[in-house]
């Protein structure tokens, strides 16, 4: 969306150095911020750095992390996907109905397992379909992505609302909670899924022809067309990936809360994923998954850290929103000075 409304001079130089340095300065800056915050919270509160709190963070963070990947990949090609959260809710609601309505009451645990696998497939399929519609609107019809996905955000939310009648879907088989609660060597499964998906997306963007084409299209769609890249089909594929990632978030959320609702995280999650992408300095054509990962970590420790410090203070849970905003502005300003120094150096 409006990442770069008019190509102005500073933006170009921003692209310039991003190309030269493999580990861009944004990663270092974010890591620095992360370490400072981590030390601050550990000193300020002795309950902060404990196995229990780290574990609880690693349960909460994968959902928003995977959703941020879904957002990031569309920003990378110069678009945006406002329907990520609506897609994940719709996938969860339909997969939820699939399990609640179809699993026979007397099914053995193996049969239930089979149905669960099918339900996950159904959710992923919904993700694909949601991506296809976005892809048609943006890629083939040419609707600006912010508008197209705003419309589908309403549409997908509308489908979930209609199907559930505004109620929360519950009553999944107990085994379904295992996706969210299983640990491998002490690490929660959702966190492993997030890391694996982040790695996969990173490889896709940095190491494959597809990723190269996508980045090229993001930085200059006109040049990409003349280089023989089929932009509409690229956009379609990107939105399908975004839809599938959103559906994965839906499955994770569903398993952790053991419920599916049309209104889960409406609007705030979408804005949060954009916030993470902006914090990670994702621009059309440029962006690293590692930055997304660190940005998610930063947001999570700010949220957990201030919640711990401010328990009992009225409105304490909202201090994190304020500090997210302030932190973003500070990072923007720091970036500006880094950029300017590089300019004068070169």
């Amino acid at each position: 969306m409006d990442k770069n409304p008019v190509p102005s001079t500073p933006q170009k130089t921003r692209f310039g150095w991003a190309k030269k340095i493999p580990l861009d300065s944004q990663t270092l800056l974010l890591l620095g911020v992360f370490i400072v915050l981590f030390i601050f919270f550990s000193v300020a509160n002795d309950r902060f750095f404990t196995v229990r709190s780290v574990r609880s963070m690693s349960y909460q963070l994968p959902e928003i992390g995977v959703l941020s990947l879904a957002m990031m990949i569309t920003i990378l090609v110069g678009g945006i996907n406002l329907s990520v959260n609506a897609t994940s809710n719709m996938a969860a609601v339909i997969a939820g109905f699939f399990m609640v309505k179809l699993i026979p009451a007397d099914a053995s645990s193996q049969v239930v397992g089979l149905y669960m696998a099918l339900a996950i497939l159904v959710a992923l399929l919904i993700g694909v379909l949601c991506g296809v519609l976005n892809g048609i609107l943006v890629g083939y019809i040419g609707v600006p992505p912010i508008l197209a996905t705003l419309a589908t955000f309403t549409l997908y939310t509308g489908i979930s609302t209609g199907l559930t009648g505004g109620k929360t879907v519950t009553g999944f088989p107990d085994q379904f909670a295992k996706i969210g609660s299983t640990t491998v060597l002490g690490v929660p499964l959702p966190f492993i899924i997030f890391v694996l998906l982040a790695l996969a997306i990173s490889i896709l963007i940095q190491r494959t022809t597809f990723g190269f084409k996508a980045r090229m299209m993001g930085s200059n769609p006109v040049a990409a067309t003349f280089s023989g890249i089929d932009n509409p089909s690229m956009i379609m594929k990107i939105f399908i990936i975004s839809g599938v990632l959103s559906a994965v978030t839906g499955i994770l959320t569903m398993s952790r809360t053991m419920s599916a609702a049309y209104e889960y995280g409406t609007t705030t999650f979408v804005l949060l994923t954009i916030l993470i992408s902006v914090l990670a300095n994702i621009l059309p054509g440029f962006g690293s998954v590692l930055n997304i990962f660190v940005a998610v970590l930063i947001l999570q420790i700010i949220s957990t850290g201030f919640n711990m410090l401010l328990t009992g203070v009225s409105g304490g849970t909202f201090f994190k929103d304020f500090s997210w905003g302030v932190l973003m502005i500070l990072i923007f300003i720091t970036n500006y000075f880094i950029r300017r120094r590089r300019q004068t150096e070169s």
Partner: protein
Amino acid sequence: MLKKIIRTNEFVVFLILVGLSLVVGLINPAFFAISTLFDILRGSIVYFIMAFGLLPIIIAGGVDISFVAIAAFTSYATHMFLLSRGYQGGLFLYFLIAGGLGLLAGLLNAFLVTRFKLPVFDVSLATFTMWYGFTLFFVGATANFDLPKPTVGYYENFLMVAQDPVSGQTGLHVSILYVLVIGLVVWWFLKYTTIGRGVYAIGGNKDVAVRSGFNINRIMMIIFALMGILASVAGVTQAFLNRFFNPVVFIGNPLDVIAAVILGGAAITGGRGTVIGTAMGVVLIQLINRALIITGIPVEWQKLVVGIILVIFTSLPALRERRARRMGRTTELAQ
């Protein structure tokens, strides 16, 4: 002349408005009543004000979402301050204080955008989060129903009253007058002032605007200040229309307002947009909502219908444009 009018985006929006009204009216003739008009206008008032504030920013090629947070912060903070002082006067002081705060909040956005060369959207996302967080943590997190006595009757201060057999008495609320004044001022500003023309110039091509001698920074300051003031006016108006102050008011609405401006024919890429089109965009969204109720579509399916309508309405202009330039078309993703 006539041909020129027919070709505009605004005319298409107008046709859609008329067409939709006719369809709804055929399904349920009760729709054609003066009370329906008053209802739609009442529902539109705060959206008109916010959309008029947002329009110049969109024309200048930026997308802002922080205006809703500014509306919530300024109105709620003003109210809590006046309440703690035991204020028992009218609305004027509310508009004055909130407007002043809104002005400052708008200027903060403009400062960050111009001084640090940042995209409008990124800055507004940060200030959106910051202002809601600030309000909820430092000012208060609960809705307040304790209004000053002289303002209590304001919500039913009607210019005109219509009797309706179904919904009872409805009226044309007096605040529609501010909307008219604000609309005229913004229209005049965009059409007849040098700075207003500069707004279009920036949205059309920033480099050319700079070389033509427009002072971009000053123009950005002015349009953001305007946005901040109008957001706070909308926030205060909203509170008195509903008789309570809500610290998270509009938190889910920034995209609705943007959609209204864009449906009204403004280009999200900048350089195009009019006050009259924006006003019709706002009415269109309200009309769709009203139409859903009046045609008897079950509540839980209404959002789906809105979604389908939005998908169609956003595709139509794109299809039109696509046909217009079949030759050498490239996907316009870089919005």
